[in-house]
């Protein structure tokens, strides 16, 4: 029977803390595939934030995102033997994370659709030029957040992942399983539709 999992049961080569930065993901993956849980531990440390943000883009709830991120990392460890290196480990992991998040989102269903994105809008900092401007800014950001939340999932996912600042287009393309050109088109369409909704609310271009 295989031993129970523990990150510290199979220590990697003794090395001072912080020195694993020079070890590539590929090397860590090879060690992890040989059963070195410590190597997988390092991979988790490197990529857990990116996995979490991808899940958050899909779920917009930190609690749900953390659950999905855990699912993804557990899944990655279990499927690591099947990883053949056709893509980078990070891209492979993000694809798993995105799929787990989508699966969770489907199970959440209508409840998710009713969630108000106000909390996210409140995190946007205003210009701070004055109380009135700050109030207007806050109102605008709430409208923008609502408009983004009202987009179709395809457009919203593309926009949120593209604006997360964490991923390249190639990584998002792998996650969403669409060509890069399609992805860029979706981001453009998402912006256009958000602006249309803002225009309907009275936010028009000043020129």
């Amino acid at each position, binding site marked *: *029977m*295989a*031993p*129970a*999992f*523990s*990150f510290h049961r199979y220590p990697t080569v003794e090395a001072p803390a912080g020195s694993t930065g020079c070890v590539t993901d590929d090397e860590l993956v090879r060690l992890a595939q040989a*059963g070195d849980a410590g190597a997988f*531990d390092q991979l*988790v*440390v490197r990529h*857990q*934030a990116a996995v*979490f*943000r991808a899940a*958050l*883009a899909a779920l*917009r709830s*930190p609690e749900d*995102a*953390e659950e999905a*991120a*855990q699912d993804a*990392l*557990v899944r990655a*460890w*279990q*499927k*690591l*033997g*099947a990883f053949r290196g056709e893509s980078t480990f990070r891209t492979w992991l993000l694809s798993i994370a995105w799929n787990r998040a989508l699966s969770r989102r489907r199970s959440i269903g209508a409840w998710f659709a009713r969630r108000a*994105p106000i909390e*996210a*809008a409140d*995190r*946007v900092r205003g210009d701070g030029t004055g109380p009135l401007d700050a109030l*207007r800014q806050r109102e*605008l*950001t709430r409208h*923008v*957040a609502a408009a*983004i939340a009202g987009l179709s999932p395809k457009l919203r996912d593309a*926009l*949120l*992942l*593209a*604006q*997360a*600042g*964490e991923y390249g287009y190639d990584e998002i393309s792998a996650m969403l399983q669409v060509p890069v050109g399609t992805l860029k088109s979706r981001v453009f369409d998402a*912006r256009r539709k*958000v*602006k249309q909704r*803002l225009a309907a609310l*009275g*936010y*028009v*271009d*000043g*020129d």
Partner: protein
Amino acid sequence: MMNHESRDLDSVIDEVAQAMTRAERPRDLRAAIAERLEARPPSWLSGWRVAAASAAAAVVLLVAVMMRPGESPQPAHVADSSSPRPTVAPAPAVIQARAVGQPARRAVARQTIAPVTPGIVEIRPLAVVPFKTDDELSGGEAPSHMVVIAPIDVEQVRISQIELVE
């Protein structure tokens, strides 16, 4: 009516979209993952270990079988390199030569194989028939071991004998 330049709206959209994927840095997930994996080791890892153990057991079993005394299999006979190599025996002259131009049925050469002796099966190499030109052959009678191929017989046909079939 509130006027905002398009550039401003774009920046607001960017900021809001970024905020929607931003959260407090998540807590370290390693402890939770280790807890969840504690009960479920990866299937590929256990399978790999089972396969390795099976392979090792198979090797041990094979070695044990081969090392059993008195039951070693009869080794295949290998010709001693010090013994003289078998000489090349001339092929039996069963191929009968015939005169050039005479139609005759071609004799089929058949090589008999000596009875098999237990142990070594010796295969005689084929003899190589030297090539001679037609000029050489026309100078004299063909040697008995030469094969002369007769020209193809062509039967003459008169055109008047041909019937027209419609």
